[in-house]
C-alpha cells in the first residue's frame, strides 16, 4: 500500500483513513532524539550504587577507593546531596488513613528493596562512573525480608517500615448495598449458600508480578546552566514531572523546563517521578554542570516500577439456571517497598471493572494494599483493569463449569444487552454505548468457534499428544482517564482534563500544541488527521508539538488510553475556537454578515454565492493585520481544555485457541481472534497496531513473563535472559476486527484503544490452556503457564509423578508467587 496525497482542492475526509505515520521517517532512518543521545559540552555521567539486599540497615559507606579513580568528579551518599530528605510523591492517597512511608531519592539509613540506591558516583564518562560505583564499600546489617503478603499482614510480622506500625498500606472497600447501586453481596452469597436453587463458587487467583519492559531504558539529562533548569527525561509524564519536581524539591515551578524527547515506549512504566531523576537533578545543581543518568537493562528490571501482583479471592453466587446473584472480591495488592506516583490507586481501579459487562445485582470489593521488601508496583498497561478482567473472566469459566453450561452461553445470559445502554452498573459507572452481541457474533464467526470445538473433540477422542483448548474473554474497560470530578471523588491528586492549542501561522501552516505526550502511539499522525478535517487544511500542513513544557505548558500527559478520548477532543475544541475567532474576520473580508457565513472544507463562504475565503488566507490576513474589524484582536489562535464527563468504555470479544503438548507441557498459540469496539476510529492502521501490541503483552502475562523473587528478596528475573519477553517466534498473527458503537460522551465518538488488547487477552489465553487439559483433571495453573507448570499440573492430576508435589498447580496465595522453586527449570522454552 502507498500513501495517497490529499490535494487541497479535493478534500478527502482524513478521519478514518489508514494514513501512514508522520513519525516514521525519523525513526526508520535513525534520526532520533532519545534522551541518552543528548550530548552537552561538559556533560557528566552518574552511576548509582545499589543495595544487593532486600532489607538492611546501612552501617557505613566508604567512598574513598571510588574517589581515587581518575575521571571521578564526586561520590555522594544520600546525606551529601540531601537525597535522604526528599519525599518522592505519591499522588493518590486512596483513603484518608492511608499509611505512607517516606520514599527518599537515595536511602539514608535503611534499604527496603534490593536495588534501592544508596550512593551516586559522578564521572567524566559513564564507564568510569560504573567502574567507581563498584568500588564504593557499603556496610549493611541484613534485616528479615518481607515477601509474602499474607504473612506480612499477620501479627508479629517483620515490618517493612516499622514507623508505620503495620505492613498494611490501606484498605479500600466498595459495597453496592451501601452505595445504593445494588444489594448487599455478603447477604446475597450467604442466602445462596442455603438456597437449593443456587450455587456458590469460590476461587483464588494469582496475578503475578510483571515488569513493563519499555524497550528504551530510562534516561535523564539535567542542565542547570541556564536561567531555567532543563530536564530531558524518558518519561510519559513531562508535565506531571515538572509540577512534582517543584512540589517535591521546593523549586520554583517557572524555573523548571521538562522535555520528553523521543520516548521509546512506556506502558505505564514511565509514569513516575523516579528517584534517579531527582538524584540527577540534585547532582547537577550541586556541581552546576549538565549531568546524565542512563540505566542499564538490568537496573531497569530491578528498579523501574513493576506492575500487577495481586492475590484475588473471588466468590460468585449464581442460580442453577445461570443467573448471577452476587459477587464478592477480596484482593491483596503488593505495593512493594514504597508508594509510586499512582501505585495505591492501581488496584482500586479494578473496583469498577470486576463486574465487567455483566448485570450483577450485589457486589462487594475489598482491597488491602500491602508493603513488602520488593520493587514498588505502579501502573502497567491496563493498571487495575487487566487484573479485574482476568479475575472475572477466569471466574466466569469456572462458574460455567460448575453449572455445566457452555462458557459463552453463561456469559450471554448475564451480559448487558445492546438495547439496555446507557447502563449504570452495580459499581456506579454508566456505560454509554456497546454491543456485546455484535462483537461476539463476529468473533465467533471469524474464529470458527464450532469448527474448533469439533476439532477439540476429535483430538480428545483420539487422545492426541497435542490437545486443543479454547478460551473466551468478553471484556470491557474504563479508560480515557478521566473526569476530573470522578478523580476528585477517588482522592486522586490531580484532574483528568487535557489541553490543546492551535497556532495559525502566517503561511497557512498549523502548529498544534498538545498536553498529551506520546511514546509510540502516533499522536502526530492521528491528531493531524483530526485537525485536517476540523480546519479543512492539508494533513501535511499540520505539525503536532508535544513533550516540552516550554511550548506545551499545560497538560496531564499520556496514560490510561486518554490521548485521543480526552486530548483529541481538546484538539477538536481548540479547532472550533479557531473557526469562531476567524468568523468575524472572514465576514469583514467578504463584506458579509457573520450570519450569512458557513464554514466547510477550510473555507468560509457566503451562503448562496460563490464568494469565500480560506482559513489559511485569514491566517495571513491577521498576520498582516492591515485591515480587520474594530473591537477584536488580530489573532485566530486558540487554546482549549476538555474535561470529559465520563470514561470511555471500549469492549470486545477475544477468542483464543492453544495447543498444549501433554508430554512436555509446552503451550503454542494456535489461533487468536478479537473483535473490539473502540468507538469511531481515526486511523485504523494505528488502532490495529495498538491491538496487536496489547495482545502480545497480555498473552505474555499468560504464558511467559514473571518478576520472580527468591526467599531472600532477590529478583531472579533481573535480565532479559531471565525475564522472558516473547519474540516473534513465540507469537502468531492475530485476526483482529472492529465493531463500532460510537461513544456518546465526546464529539468524535471515540473510545480508548491503548490498553484494550492487554486487558482482554490474558484470561482468554489461560482459559484456553485449562480448556485443553481440564479433561486430564487439571483445575488451575498459575501464570505464567510455563511448560514446567503445565507439565507438572498434568502429572499431578494423573498422579504419576513425585516431582509434581513440588509444582505449583493450585493457586498458592503466597507472596512469593511460588516461582522461586520452579524458575530454574521452569523457564519458558
Amino acid at each position, binding site marked *: 500500500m502507498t500513501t495517497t496525497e490529499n490535494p487541497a482542492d479535493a478534500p478527502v475526509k482524513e478521519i478514518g483513513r489508514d494514513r501512514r505515520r508522520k513519525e516514521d521517517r525519523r525513526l526508520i532512518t535513525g534520526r532520533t532524539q532519545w534522551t541518552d543521545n543528548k550530548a552537552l559540552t561538559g556533560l557528566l555521567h552518574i552511576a548509582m550504587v545499589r543495595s544487593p539486599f532486600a532489607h538492611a540497615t546501612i552501617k557505613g559507606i566508604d567512598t574513598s577507593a571510588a574517589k581515587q579513580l581518575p575521571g571521578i568528579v564526586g561520590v555522594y551518599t544520600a546525606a551529601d546531596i540531601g537525597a535522604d530528605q526528599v519525599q518522592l510523591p505519591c499522588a493518590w492517597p486512596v483513603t484518608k488513613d492511608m499509611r505512607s512511608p517516606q520514599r527518599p531519592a537515595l536511602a539514608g539509613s535503611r534499604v527496603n528493596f534490593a536495588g534501592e540506591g544508596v550512593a551516586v558516583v559522578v564521572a567524566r564518562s559513564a564507564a568510569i562512573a560504573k567502574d567507581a560505583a563498584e568500588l564504593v564499600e557499603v556496610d549493611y546489617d541484613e534485616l528479615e525480608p518481607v515477601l509474602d503478603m499474607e504473612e506480612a499482614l499477620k501479627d508479629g510480622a517483620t515490618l517493612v517500615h516499622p514507623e508505620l506500625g503495620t505492613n498494611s498500606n490501606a484498605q479500600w472497600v466498595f459495597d453496592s448495598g451501601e452505595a445504593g447501586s445494588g444489594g448487599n453481596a455478603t447477604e446475597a452469597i450467604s442466602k445462596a449458600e442455603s438456597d437449593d436453587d443456587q450455587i456458590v463458587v469460590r476461587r483464588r487467583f494469582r496475578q503475578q508480578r510483571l515488569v513493563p519492559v519499555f524497550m528504551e531504558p530510562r534516561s535523564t539529562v539535567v542542565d542547570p546552566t541556564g536561567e531555567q533548569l532543563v530536564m530531558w527525561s524518558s518519561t510519559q509524564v513531562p508535565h506531571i514531572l515538572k509540577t512534582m519536581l517543584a512540589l517535591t524539591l521546593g523549586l520554583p515551578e517557572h524555573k523548571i523546563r521538562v522535555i520528553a524527547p523521543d520516548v521509546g*515506549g512506556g506502558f505505564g512504566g514511565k509514569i513516575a517521578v523516579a528517584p534517579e531523576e531527582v538524584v540527577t537533578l540534585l547532582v547537577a545543581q550541586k556541581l552546576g554542570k549538565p549531568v546524565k543518568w542512563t540505566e542499564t537493562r538490568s537496573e531497569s528490571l530491578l528498579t523501574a516500577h513493576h506492575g500487577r501482583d495481586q492475590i484475588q479471592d473471588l466468590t460468585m453466587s449464581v442460580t442453577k439456571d445461570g443467573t448471577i446473584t452476587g459477587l464478592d472480591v477480596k484482593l491483596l495488592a503488593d505495593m512493594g517497598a514504597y508508594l509510586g506516583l499512582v501505585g495505591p490507586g492501581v488496584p482500586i481501579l479494578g473496583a469498577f471493572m470486576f463486574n465487567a459487562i455483566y448485570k450483577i445485582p450485589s457486589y462487594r470489593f475489598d482491597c488491602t494494599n500491602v508493603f513488602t521488601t520488593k520493587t514498588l508496583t505502579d501502573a502497567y498497561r491496563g493498571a487495575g483493569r487487566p487484573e479485574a478482567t482476568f479475575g472475572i473472566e477466569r471466574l466466569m469459566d469456572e462458574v460455567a463449569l460448575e453449572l455445566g453450561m457452555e462458557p459463552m452461553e453463561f456469559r450471554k445470559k448475564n451480559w448487558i444487552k445492546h438495547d439496555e445502554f446507557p447502563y449504570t452498573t452495580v459499581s456506579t459507572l454508566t456505560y454509554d454505548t456497546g454491543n456485546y452481541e455484535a462483537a461476539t457474533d463476529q468473533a465467533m464467526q471469524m474464529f470458527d468457534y464450532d469448527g474448533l470445538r469439533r476439532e477439540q473433540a476429535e483430538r480428545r477422542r483420539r487422545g492426541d499428544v497435542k490437545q486443543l483448548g479454547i478460551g473466551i474473554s468478553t471484556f470491557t474497560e474504563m479508560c480515557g482517564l478521566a473526569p476530573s470530578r470522578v478523580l476528585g471523588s477517588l482522592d486522586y491528586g490531580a484532574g483528568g482534563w487535557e489541553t490543546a492549542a492551535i497556532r495559525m501561522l502566517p503561511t497557512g501552516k498549523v502548529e498544534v500544541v498538545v498536553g498529551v505526550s506520546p511514546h509510540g502511539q502516533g499522536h502526530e499522525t492521528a491528531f493531524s488527521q483530526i485537525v485536517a478535517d476540523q480546519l479543512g487544511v492539508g494533513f501535511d500542513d499540520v505539525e503536532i508539538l508535544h513533550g516540552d513544557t516550554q511550548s506545551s505548558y499545560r497538560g496531564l500527559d499520556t496514560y490510561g488510553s486518554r490521548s485521543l478520548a480526552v486530548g483529541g477532543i481538546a484538539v477538536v475544541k481548540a479547532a472550533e475556537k479557531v473557526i469562531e475567532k476567524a468568523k468575524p474576520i472572514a465576514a469583514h473580508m467578504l463584506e458579509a454578515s457573520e450570519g450569512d457565513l458557513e464554514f466547510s472544507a477550510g473555507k468560509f463562504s457566503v451562503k448562496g454565492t460563490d464568494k469565500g475565503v480560506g482559513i489559511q488566507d485569514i491566517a495571513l490576513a491577521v498576520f498582516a493585520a492591515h485591515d480587520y474589524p474594530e473591537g477584536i484582536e488580530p489573532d485566530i489562535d486558540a487554546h482549549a481544555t476538555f474535561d470529559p464527563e465520563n470514561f470511555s468504555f471500549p469492549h470486545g470479544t477475544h477468542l483464543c485457541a492453544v495447543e498444549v503438548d501433554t508430554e512436555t507441557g509446552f503451550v503454542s498459540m494456535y489461533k487468536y481472534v478479537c473483535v473490539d469496539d473502540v468507538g469511531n476510529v481515526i486511523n485504523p492502521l494505528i488502532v490495529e497496531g495498538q491491538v496487536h501490541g496489547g495482545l502480545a503483552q497480555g498473552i505474555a502475562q499468560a504464558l511467559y513473563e514473571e518478576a520472580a523473587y527468591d526467599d531472600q528478596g532477590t529478583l531472579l528475573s533481573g535480565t532479559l535472559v531471565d525475564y522472558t519477553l516473547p519474540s516473534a517466534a513465540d507469537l502468531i498473527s492475530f485476526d483482529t476486527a472492529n465493531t463500532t458503537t460510537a461513544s456518546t460522551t465526546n464529539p468524535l465518538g471515540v473510545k480508548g484503544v491503548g490498553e484494550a488488547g492487554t486487558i482482554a487477552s490474558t484470561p482468554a489465553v489461560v482459559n484456553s490452556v485449562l480448556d485443553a487439559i481440564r479433561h486430564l483433571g487439571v483445575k488451575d495453573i498459575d501464570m505464567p503457564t510455563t511448560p514446567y507448570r503445565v507439565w507438572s499440573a498434568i502429572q499431578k492430576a494423573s498422579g504419576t509423578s513425585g516431582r509434581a508435589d513440588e509444582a505449583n498447580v493450585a493457586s498458592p496465595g503466597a507472596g512469593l508467587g511460588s516461582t522461586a522453586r520452579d524458575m530454574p527449570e521452569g523457564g519458558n522454552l
Partner: protein
Amino acid sequence: MARIRTTVDGLVYEDDVEPRMLLVQYLRERLGKTGTVIGCDTSNCGACTVHLDGMSVKSCSVLAVQANGAEVLTIEGLERDGQLHPVQQAFHDNHALQCGYCTPGMIMQSIDLLGDNPDPTEHEVREGIEGNLCRCTGYQNIVRAVQDAASKMKPGAAPTAEAGAKQTVAGGGA
C-alpha cells in the same frame, strides 16, 4: 588505547579506543551514530544490530577493536540519494513500528535475513528476527513488512545497498 580504522556508513574513521569499548559505544559516543541504540546488557534485545562486513551483528557484543579494518553499516547509512531502503519503506508502509526504539536493529536484522532468504515464509521471518525484541507491535506488522519488502526486492539485492562512497575522517567524533 588501541588504534582502529573502520569504515562506517561509507566514511573511514581512525580513532584510539579503550580495548574494552564496545562497538555500539564507539558508534554512539565517538561517532555520534545515535541511530543505533542500546536496549539491554545481555545481547537479548537486538536493538543495537548493525552490519559488520555485510553480516548482522549485535554491536553490544562486538568490541570496537574487533571492527578494526572492517566495514560497518548502520541504520543511518541505508538511505541512498534520499531513497529509503526497501525494508525501511516497508516498515513505514506496513506500520511496523510504534515507539521506534527497536526499529533500527529490527530493520538491519531484516535486511540480513532477506540477504540469506529472499522469499521467507511467515515462519521463517519469525525465526529470522527472534533475536530482536519489540514491545510495541506484537511483531505482526514487522513480519508483514519483511514479507512486503521481500516481494519488492529482487532476490539477492539487499547487500548492494551497502556499497557507498568512502571518505577518510581521521579522529572523527573523538
